[in-house]
């Protein structure tokens, strides 16, 4: 019998790197972060990087993606980039507060490590916050991110910085908080930022996260974001991934929703080499509502894999999932949507849909719903479609004088509209709509981020 997991060179390298730097990590970080770190490395040693046999990563083999000799920055490196560009290209009419994360570390160029906004909102560096607010960290940090996935454990083991957001009780923040993740290096690097968002009772807020690679090097991001939304809260999470073909991104989001909280996520994958999004939602209080939306536009050899897991752990909760994708050239994709309705979670409403358009015969998508329902009084539905652009509709438009290319674009925009229309803030929705149109026209360069147009 062979029960042992064989540790590959890559995994060994991580473990060695951890051992060499453990003292440095622990000296810098707070107690709770270190506590989670210890279990992180233990779990990673046990699990490793999810392998071929792991059903959850069936369509995205991970091991080869790590074989690139990425440098791992264990402290912020000085990098040259023009901050003015970042500001100049801010979403024009959108009133935001902007936070910059460079290669996984909070960047001070745009303000002090931790800032308390007039509304009482605290925003800043995760590392700094972990020292400043130990009680909050003890209560929330590492409590939602499950180490069942070796990649998450790996992130916990190496976690140093990222962003921290705290929205105090009753605070209603109308501006969007914008977090820009920049990758900028003169060599191939791997980054693992760790983020924590806490939305306290009766509060309302929203974040827009823009992932952007400024230099053409290979990048690998393995990020974990924990989100806690307390009772009676509203929280919007919009993520725009616009990197480049040499960028690999694993993004793990863990959401814990308490009673009567309402959380919406929009994961928009516009550009990336290999992208894997994990959205894990625990509906942990009655009356909670979750909306998980996603849009992926991929072409060339790109690959995007979306995994969602909605855990209806309490009765009377609602979840809606809608993921839509357009795949061109020989792009590939996967959608795996898991819904778990626990035994006592009566009166659950859980809906899931995944719709895809394949523009070529080479493009491929694997769509798999996974419904596990143990309660009897529930309303659940799921559906997946894979199709082409409707030829009849294309001919109808062309017969009115609309050129074929334009007709195709109009139809693709119509297809994506259903997702974008869920972004509630108007200037942001308009801006993202523009970005998506540009992407569909093939005019979106790697330098057009959601808010950042650098170089």
């Amino acid at each position: 019998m062979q029960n042992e997991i064989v540790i590959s060179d890559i995994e060994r390298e991580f473990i060695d790197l951890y051992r060499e730097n453990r003292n440095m990590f622990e000296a810098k970080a707070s107690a709770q972060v270190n506590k989670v770190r210890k279990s992180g490395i233990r779990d990673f040693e046990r699990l490793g990087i999810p392998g071929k046999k792991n059903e959850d990563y069936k369509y995205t083999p991970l091991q080869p993606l790590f074989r690139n000799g990425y440098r791992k920055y264990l402290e912020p490196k000085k990098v040259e980039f023009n901050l003015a560009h970042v500001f100049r290209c801010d979403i024009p009419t959108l009133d935001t507060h902007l936070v910059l994360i460079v290669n996984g570390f909070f960047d001070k160029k745009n303000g002090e490590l931790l800032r308390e906004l007039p509304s009482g909102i605290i925003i800043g560096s995760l590392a700094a916050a972990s020292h400043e607010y130990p009680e909050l960290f003890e209560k929330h940090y590492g409590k939602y991110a499950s180490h069942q996935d070796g990649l998450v454990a790996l992130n916990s083991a190496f976690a140093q910085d990222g962003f921290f957001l705290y929205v105090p009780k009753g605070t209603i923040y109308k501006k969007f908080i914008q977090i820009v993740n920049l990758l900028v290096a003169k060599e191939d690097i791997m980054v693992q930022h760790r983020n924590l968002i806490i939305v306290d009772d009766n509060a309302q807020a929203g974040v827009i996260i823009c992932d952007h690679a400024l230099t053409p090097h290979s990048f690998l991001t393995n990020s974990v974001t924990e989100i806690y939304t307390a009772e009676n809260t509203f929280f919007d999470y919009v993520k725009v991934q616009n990197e480049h073909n040499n960028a690999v991104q694993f993004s793990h989001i863990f959401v814990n929703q308490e009673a009567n909280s309402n959380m919406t996520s929009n994961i928009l994958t516009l550009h990336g080499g290999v992208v894997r999004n994990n959205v894990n939602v625990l509906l942990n209080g009655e009356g909670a509502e979750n909306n998980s939306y996603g849009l992926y536009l991929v072409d060339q050899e790109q690959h995007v894999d979306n995994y969602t897991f909605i855990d209806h752990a309490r009765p009377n909760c609602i979840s809606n999932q809608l993921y839509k994708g357009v795949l061109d050239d020989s792009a590939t994709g996967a959608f795996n949507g898991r819904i778990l309705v626990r035994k006592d979670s009566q009166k659950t409403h859980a809906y899931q849909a995944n719709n895809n358009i394949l523009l070529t015969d080479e493009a491929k998508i694997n769509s798999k719903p996974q419904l596990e329902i143990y309660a009897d009084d529930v309303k659940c539905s799921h559906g997946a479609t894979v199709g082409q652009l409707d030829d009849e509709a294309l001919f109808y438009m062309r017969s009115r004088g609309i050129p074929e290319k334009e007709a195709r674009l109009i139809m693709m925009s119509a297809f994506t509209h259903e997702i974008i229309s869920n972004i509630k803030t108007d200037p942001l929705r308009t801006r993202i709509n523009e970005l998506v149109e540009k992407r569909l026209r093939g005019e979106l360069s790697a330098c057009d981020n959601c808010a950042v147009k650098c170089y």
Partner: protein
Amino acid sequence: MKSMLNIKDLRASIEGKEILKGINLEVREGEVHAIMGPNGSGKSTLASLVAGKNFADVTSGSITYLGKNLFDLNPEERSKAGIFLGFQYPIEIPGVTMVNFLKTAVNEHRKHKGLEPLSAKDFLKLLREKKDLVEIDSKLTSRSVNAGFSGGEKKKNEIFQMAMLEPKLAILDETDSGLDIDALKIVANGVNKLKRKDNATIIITHYQRLLDYIIPDFVHVLFDGRIVKSGGKELAFELEEKGYQWIKNQVNGN
């Protein structure tokens, strides 16, 4: 009068089955032609081929439009050259609003003519004008193209689009079916109002009643892929009275 559309010995098959078996038809400026014929005789196939739908194999023959070989033009070029097909079954396009669809179409036509795109204000003015002409419900233009429109609304919408694009040659494929009598009058009225000396209309219909409102110069009977009989408007009455069996018997020579 100038020849507009000239179809010569057109043969076309779908999946190996010959549907059009040598069609000859000439339409000149200012004329109204009606094409009648039993179900499945090839009327829509003929209309779609003129509009540029790429679904049947043309095995022989030619279609000339204003001196140009139509087969050299793609559907959008044909539209901009003035050909309009009112679909027998208008297509639903969820998510694409009528306004957006029409604005794009109208501006493509303008670009072709070397005109600037219409301003938002001028476009809305044009929209309102044409809406009144075909008495279409105002709300329909803010909805998705044909999505959830009733049968009659879809047909009216075809005439509305025709009014917006002002074609030289309009082919209306059973635009009268499914219309109530008031709507029928509105459609006929729309066609008559848009009639000019230098444009032409082909009406495909099963019913003589539309021809009470739009008086055709010629009536053709399409039967099993061939035009087997042509005549004046009185042919429509004769058909109504005697049915297609009469034609069938004539064709079969008994």
